[in-house]
Structure formats: C-alpha cells, structure tokens
C-alpha cells in the first residue's frame, strides 16, 4: 500500500492535550495518555496504532503542530 | 537639480527642501495650513521617483510613515495641530522603534479645533509629546524659508544618525509667508546611511528581525528604556542648536523661537540703535532645548523676556535653563487676526524691564 511509505509521529513536547486530534481521528487510534510533558500537559498517544490509516486528519486539526504523518526516510 | 533661488510659500519651500534632501514618500491628510506641502509634493515627488500618498486620517498617515521607515526608506509627513494630536501614538511608536522620518507641524491656534491662523501652541505637544511613555523626538524650529532649506540636510542626518523621528515645528505665520530661498543642488542624504543592520527587509540577507516597541519581560522593557535614555542623553549633549545675538553685555535678553526669534533680530537692532542693551537667544532645536545658550549669561543681565504665540510653553524650559538667576518674564498671544506679539508689543515690554 502507498501509505506504507509514511509513518505517524507525535511531538510530545508540543502537545497541549487539547484532544482535537482524538476527536478527529476516524479510527479512534488516539487518546490522551498519562505521560506529562515539560509544559505539564498529558500528552496524546496512539492507543491503537494498528488501526491507523495514516490519513493525516490529526495533523490538519492540531493547533500546535504536534502530530502528523510524515514520509519515511 | 542644480542650485537655484525660488520664491515660494514656506510650506512649499519645506516640500521642495525635503524632497531635494532625499524624502521619497510623503504621507499626509489635508489640514490648513499644512495642506500646501502635500499639494506641492504631489507635483514634484514623481519627478524624483517617489510619491505623495494621501491617507484617510492622520492615524493612518503616521502609521504608514512608520511602515515606510521600517524599510529603511526616508518618508515624511506634514500636518497641523489637530492632525499632530492624532499622530502622537505613532510618534511614540516610531521613537521607541527607532524609526527615522521627517515630520512637520505647521502650528495653528488651539485648543480643540482651534483656528487656522498661525500660532506656537504645540510646543508642549512637540517637545513633551502626547504619546505613550518616556520618549523624545528631535524638534527643529526654523524661522525662515532659507533656514528650512539650510536645516533639512541636518534633519535627515539627525534622523538616520540617531534613528529617530525629526519634527519641524513651524508657526503658521512663518509657514504661510512667501519669500525666496536659495536651494543648493539636490542631494539624497538618506542614501548615505547604511540601513542594512536594522531595516526589516526580509530574511534574505539577515537573521529574522522584528520590531517590538513593547516587551515580553520586565527586564526587556527596562533594557529598551535604558537604551533609549542613553540615546536621548547623547542627543541632548551633542545636538543643541541656537542663535545668540548681542547677549554679551545685555541687560535684557529676549528669547523667542520661529517668528518671534526672527522678529527679535529687528528688535535688537532697533533697540541697540537707541543705546538699549538688548540681546536675543533664538532656540533652533526645541528638543533638545539649548540649555547651553543660557550657561554664560552676562553679569549685566537684569531679566529675560520670553515671547511666544501661546500661553507660555517654552517659558518652562527657559525657566529651567535660567534656573532662578534672573527673573523670567513672559509675553504671549494666541489667536486674532495677526496672532502674534508685534514688535511694538515686545519693545514696550522690554522698556519696562530695562
């Protein structure tokens, strides 16, 4: 599949735990986790990575440029 | 453009002088009597590859001028009292942002809407400013068309050397009188200054820059203010300008700027012809105020007479400079058909002081 050239990434340091990506994800792969970043926010994490279709909607809605789908090196 | 003598209204002389010295963009809004400047630049600026831009208000004018200055380009504006009032915020902004520009306040009578007749009612507005916070702008007060021409190269150099607005305040009487002035060959004085170290021209040749006149931390604000303070002190030390006439043995010294300083030259000549020991100090920079002119007042001095077309504004600065050594008297007038103290008024007042 074409999407195999890409991967899902989260920049934990930038996340502010707003949850917009969690809401936007069509496959419910994301959730606010327990881990705190240095800003004191509970960082979002992929709870069901196997369901991720690399659609990139999380990147579109994220107001902090903290998440997205990037090409593999 | 070769050297030539032109017979112009002094507002037009101002327009010619600033364009010949490098002003390329003139932002303005019509207001009597400053309108003459924009009428003139609208005609001549295109010949120099520049443009007069009429804006929707003096608020917009002053901010467009700031935007122009951000590119490192020399811009100017011209206005009168009420317009000057609207520009105060942006003048504070430009002083804080260290943006060079040339401004003219063709002073008329206030307060409020006031009247279109000439006055010197904006001395406080010019030297103290109505903008926000601790700031100063260099204020020049020429007394004739020729002096407007002669001061303009300096004005541009001051604006760029110190990166600050330079404000001409010229009473409406001087502005609206017509006389001849000798213009030297045109020269773009702004072009001689390298603005590449500060102008906000895009990151092609420098690291990201941004103009910030506020502060994100209290220490940043303090640092900005200290830097400005040091600059203002430097200007105060180095840039005081004035003209003194026969003060060495004077019993009364007349102090007047602009039109009154100019009339003072005739007054001193007339009174000296009658054997009366009168001298004149004519401040040319209103900020920095020429304190140094008052350092060497003679033993013979009995009093000082300040003459202004207002209720007594420069009077404060003269009193500070004289610092109680002799009495400082005041003669002032605002409004009316011929809104200034006549030579006869001044002579009568001085006779009571001799």
């Amino acid at each position, binding site marked *: 599949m074409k999407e195999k050239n890409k991967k899902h990434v989260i920049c934990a340091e930038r996340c502010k735990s707003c949850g917009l990506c969690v809401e936007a994800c069509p496959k419910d792969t994301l959730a606010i986790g327990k881990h705190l970043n240095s800003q004191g926010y509970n960082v979002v994490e992929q709870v069901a990575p196997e369901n991720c279709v690399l659609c990139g909607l999380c990147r579109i809605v994220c107001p902090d440029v903290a998440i997205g789908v990037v090409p593999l090196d | 453009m070769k050297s030539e*003598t032109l*017979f112009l209204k002094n507002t037009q002389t101002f327009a010619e002088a600033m364009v010949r010295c490098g002003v390329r963009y003139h932002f303005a809004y019509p207001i*009597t009597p400053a309108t003459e400047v924009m009428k003139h630049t609208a005609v001549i600026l295109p010949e120099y590859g520049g443009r007069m831009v009429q804006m929707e208000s003096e608020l917009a004018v002053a901010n467009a001028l700031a935007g122009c200055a951000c590119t490192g380009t020399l811009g100017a504006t011209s206005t009168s009292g009420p317009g000057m009032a609207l520009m105060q915020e942006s003048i504070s902004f430009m002083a804080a942002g260290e943006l060079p520009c040339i401004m003219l306040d063709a002073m008329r009578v206030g307060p409020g809407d006031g009247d*279109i*007749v000439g006055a010197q009612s904006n001395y406080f507005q010019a030297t103290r400013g109505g903008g926000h916070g601790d700031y100063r702008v260099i204020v020049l007060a020429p007394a004739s068309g020729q002096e407007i021409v002669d001061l303009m190269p300096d004005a541009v150099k001051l604006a760029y050397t110190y990166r600050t607005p330079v404000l001409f305040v010229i009473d409406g*009487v*001087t502005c*609206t*009188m*017509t*006389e*001849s002035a000798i213009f030297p060959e045109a020269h773009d004085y702004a072009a001689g200054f390298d603005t590449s170290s500060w102008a906000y021209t895009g990151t092609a040749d420098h690291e990201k820059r941004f103009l910030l006149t506020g502060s994100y931390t209290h220490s940043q604000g303090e640092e900005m203010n200290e830097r400005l303070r040091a600059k203002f002190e430097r200007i105060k030390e180095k840039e005081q300008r004035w003209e003194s006439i026969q003060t060495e043995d004077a019993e009364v010294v007349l102090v007047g700027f602009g*039109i009154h300083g*100019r*009339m*003072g*030259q*005739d*007054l001193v*000549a007339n009174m000296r012809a009658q054997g009366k020991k009168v001298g004149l100090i004519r401040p040319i920079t209103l900020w920095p105020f020429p304190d140094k002119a008052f350092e060497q007042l003679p033993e013979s001095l009995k009093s000082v007479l300040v003459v202004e077309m207002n209720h007594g504004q420069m009077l404060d600065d003269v009193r500070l400079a004289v610092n109680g050594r002799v009495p400082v008297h005041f003669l002032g007038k605002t409004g009316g*058909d*011929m809104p*200034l103290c*006549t*030579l*006869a008024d001044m002579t009568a007042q001085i006779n009571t002081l001799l």
Partner: protein
Amino acid sequence: MRTKCTFSGSGGQGSALLAKLVCQGAIKQGLKVVMTQTYGIEQRGGDSTGYVIVSDNFIGNPLVENDADISVALSPSIYDGCVDGAVEGGIVLVNSSLITEMREREGVKQVPISASDMAVELGSVKCANIVMLGAALAATNMLEFETVEQVLRETLGAKKPALLEMNLNALERGRTVYASAAE
C-alpha cells in the same frame, strides 16, 4: 530702504496677485521681499489681504503691523482696515468706484482712484488691481516701473497676449492717474 505694503480686497479682486507681482519685481531687482496673507476660511468670496515688505536688507520682522507705507483698498469691506493700518505719513489708494464714503485720518494721505471704472473702460473689471499697481508704483519708489512691466510680460505674455496688452495699459493708466489724483 524698506517699504511696507498692504493690498486688500474682496475675493476675486486680485489683491493676492497684486502682492505677488510686487514680490516678483523686487526679486528681479535683487531686493529682499516677504509676503504674508490673511484670508477667510472660505475658498472664494471672503476678504483677503496681501502684505508685502520690500527691503534692501534682511527682513527680520516680516509683518506689516499697522505701519504700511502704501495701502491699496479695492473694496469697501476692507477700507477701514486699510486706513487704520497705514503708518503716519503713509498713503492709502482708495478704489473710489466702489468705496463711496471716505473718512478722514490725520497724517495719512488718501488718494481716490476710480480703478474699477477705469478697468471696465480698459476692457475688464478684472484689471482694477493692475491700475492700482501702477498707482502704487507711482506713489512710492520701491520698484522701477519698467521692472513690473517686464514681470507682466513674463507672466502673461506667452499665455495670454490679449490680456497682456490690457494689463500694460492698466498699469500705465494707474501711473498717470496717480499724479493728477494725488494733487
């Protein structure tokens, strides 16, 4: 030598032009000159006065402060001001076509000249100011008559030759009429 002049009229009578012509003549003769003006807020129709000082040295005081050596009063509305604004020993040229009532002022010589009527005879009421200019030159020594003729040629000559002829006539008429009227 310093001559102070006041040129007054109602809007459209050309008092400002009159003042400007004197200035141009002065510059031509290498003299110092300063012109100030007063006018109403309205663009047209108000009273207007042009003050001119012609001098052979630097003019410190640029104002005519009720000390005009020569005054021209073109309309009744400014007549009083012209009489009061003259210096002791000064001359007031009165446009007697419009100013029918004159008042005495001691020490000031008032010369009635029916400038508007003469102007109409010469072709247009608009040249009444030039009639007065001719008279003012005759009344003072501030400028050479020929200098002003030359100024008129230069300012009007190329663009409006017909007007030039009329104005030159008006200037001459003013000069000759002053001599007889001043008797």
